[in-house]
């Protein structure tokens, strides 16, 4: 899984590309923790190219969300593929995260 970082306006846009599964989870968690340690308080996770997420992946997103809440920061998810959106909806995780349809809306909102 690739993780990209881009600064747009006040946000750090983190692009997640590929599968966020058990095999990738440790490496992604490490990267995400590095990002959090840099004290960014406005983060958008662009999931446009993320085609799979498992419970390990969801756990990482929860860790990020928890850390952001602790610093009164903002975490948004955008561009979720329909199959990923469905996972969030079925499990109820869509009520925990701010999910927006695309990056443009996420930057504006």
């Amino acid at each position, binding site marked *: 899984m690739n993780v990209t970082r881009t600064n747009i306006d006040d946000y750090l846009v983190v692009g997640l590309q590929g599968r966020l*599964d*058990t095999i990738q989870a440790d490496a992604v968690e490490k990267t995400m923790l590095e990002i959090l340690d840099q004290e960014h308080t406005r983060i958008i996770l662009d999931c446009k190219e993320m085609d799979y997420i*498992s*419970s*390990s992946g*969801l*756990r990482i997103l*929860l*860790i990020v*969300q*928890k850390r952001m809440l602790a610093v009164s920061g903002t975490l948004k998810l955008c561009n979720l593929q329909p*199959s990923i959106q*469905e*996972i969030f909806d*079925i*499990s*109820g*995780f869509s*009520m*925990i995260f701010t999910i927006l349809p695309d990056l443009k809306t996420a930057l504006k909102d």
Partner: protein
Amino acid sequence: MAILFGFFPVLIFLGCLFLLDSFKLVRVRWLIFCLIWGLLTTAMAYLLNTWSASLFDFDFKALSLYVAPVTEELLKAVFLFIMVTRRQIGFMIDAAIYGFAIGTGFALAENTWYYLHLGEGFDVLLAIVRGFGTAIMHGGTVAIFGMVLIERAQRSTSLFSGTSIGLVSAIVIHSLYNHFMVSPLLQTLLIIVILPVVFYMVFMATNNHLQKWLEVAFSSEIDMLRMIRKGQLKDTRAGNYLTSLKEHFDPEVLVDMYCYFSLYLELSIKAKRNLLLKESGFPVMLEPDIKSKLKEIRLLRKKIGKAGELALLPLVRMQHRELWELNQLENQ
């Protein structure tokens, strides 16, 4: 000073076990009940041991080596057994912590009794042996009983083998401890060194197992439910299997089986989501319709009966852990 050695090691050990519970499986309310049960069993065991000693004319040695381990372990195990049958315990981690809490309660009451009874005789050395050795042994034996019981419960529907193996293990360890085959201080040292390592290894292994279980089950259940909601179940192996049951069940029962399967998936996903939330320190979510859905799944289970449940076994393995999962939703 002596009283500190007599009381705190076992409480600190319990606290450490509690902190190792990364999925927050243990509920404080039940932990307190376990401690209270442990306290109560000390009195019960005292009465039972005294009564049996006078009835069968046991001397102190026989009582300490063979009778007390049986009565004390039996009494301590009762509450944990009830908790398992009531699906309050799902994994080795919570079984070990609740079990250790019962032993902690027992040891605290027993050490208080020794302290009050012996007065000045309860010196630092005795306090160290009782606080670090005996107290932790009392917690350890019930924890072992709990871990064996839950491990067996997950494999079979009968709790007999788990109860008997767990109890025998606890009684043998207790009795061996009371034999003091090596010096009490060395024995205490062995307990302090071995038990934490054993617990740590079991906890790590269970945590890994739990994470793998979540990983596999969560994804596959979501995939399956997604197929059901899209009306594509018939294209899957599970759907083919359900279709093949047509020949053996009435249409109404088949509909109930389908609903049961679908509802089980929905509830199971929510229970797993809550586990993930707890692990990450979020409050659990409870949808307003959960209670009615739990009621519904129970009714459906009754309606499809044992035969239906057995037929669905390849799809829904409603055993201890699955029932525990649903119970978690009910009690949150």
